[in-house]
């Protein structure tokens, strides 16, 4: 992973966290795409050698602070997410947009479900977690994110 790729990854994560924090009306809050999860997906897809399980720790911690969940919640979900991606990513690169969209939909839904399960397992007081909203919007946004990343990577001669 060269320096340009590193900067791109850092920029991507920065934008993802920025979008996570974007103030949203209450209704749209349930539809907020899982931006960080998508960037993690891209990282694992395009740099499987560098972006391994370890990135679950810093990014998970940051997501926990961002969403004020129990510390560790997103470390857990991201670790499982990355593991699933490591199983899937070779196929995923070959998939067309529609198939990719379906996979992202399922992955985000699984992540939200894991957030809920982990929270319910550890603490008695677990509020509701939006499940289908983020999955749906993430799936809808995914082709554009993927396409944009691909274009930028081609421009930067990273592929």
């Amino acid at each position, binding site marked *: 992973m060269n320096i340009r790729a590193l900067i791109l990854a850092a920029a991507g994560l*920065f934008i993802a966290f920025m979008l996570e*924090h974007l103030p949203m009306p209450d209704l749209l809050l349930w539809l907020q795409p899982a931006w960080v999860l998508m960037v993690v997906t891209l990282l694992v897809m395009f740099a499987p050698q560098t972006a391994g399980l370890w990135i679950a720790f810093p990014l*998970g911690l*940051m997501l926990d602070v961002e969403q004020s969940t*129990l510390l560790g*919640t997103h470390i*857990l979900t991201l*670790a499982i997410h990355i593991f699933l991606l490591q199983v899937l990513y070779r196929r995923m690169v070959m998939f067309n947009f529609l198939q990719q969209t379906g996979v992202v939909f399922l992955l985000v839904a699984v992540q939200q479900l894991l957030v809920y399960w982990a929270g319910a397992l*550890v*603490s008695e007081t677990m509020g509701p977690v939006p499940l289908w909203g983020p999955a749906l919007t993430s799936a809808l946004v995914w082709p554009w994110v993927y396409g944009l990343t691909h274009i930028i990577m081609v421009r930067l001669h990273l592929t």
Partner: protein
Amino acid sequence: MSPFQRQRVLGIVVLALVLMWLDSRVTWLEPVRYITGFVLAPAQQTAMIPGAIGNWYSESSTTRQELLAENKQLKARTLVLETRSQRLAALEAENIELRELLSASEQVDDRVLVTSVIAVDPDPFTQQILINKGGEDGVFIGQPVLDAYGLLGQVIDVAPYTSRVLMIADSNHAIPVQVNRNGVRAIAVGTGALDELELIYVPNTADIIKGDLLVSSGLGGRYPRGYPVATVSSVENIPGKSFAQVTAEPSARLDRSRHLLLVFSQGAAKVPATEIWKEH
């Protein structure tokens, strides 16, 4: 994928669960959260930029005319609010006073009627007030009037919807009292000053000391007995004079109370309005 990837994922999951459990039980992890917040801060600040730009734009694009108009409106609004807050203070005081009256009426067994002061007689030589209850409310001449702290005076004139009250501090007013401590009787006469009553015909040897509470004795047949009237503020024995000079401070807040109680007491003598002047 390395050979022990599944085990690693399992390890991370267990670790994360332990971390969550710790975070939900203890507070050690607060610093971690705090420091991570610093890392997140730039992204979060950036997310706020569009909103900030929007605010800045709407602020800077306001015209001078609009600003002036807004300024004027705000000033007017401040005035309205200030007036309201003044009324609020008055309402608060009124509320406290009413509460105190309520507890006072719990202490007395007599039937009472709450009334408000609507005017004060401006004549400096009389101490009279006008209240907003009159003959239609059952007010009668000679009716005792209390405030939250003690006896205030008696009704001397009844109109259908208002009444005139002679306060105990009026120089034409006298009320039979007794010292609450030992029952020594005396007559408290108004001096014309709101904060001073005088006890007349008190022997030099009478057991009255400063601080004694004077209560109405009920002997005159007009006031019910047992209501606080005044507190002795000074006792002076002047050699060569037959009577001690005793002054007392009225318990009732003659110059401040806005809400008063009219007492319909068993002991209070009821003098029909038509007969009150026949004595003269």
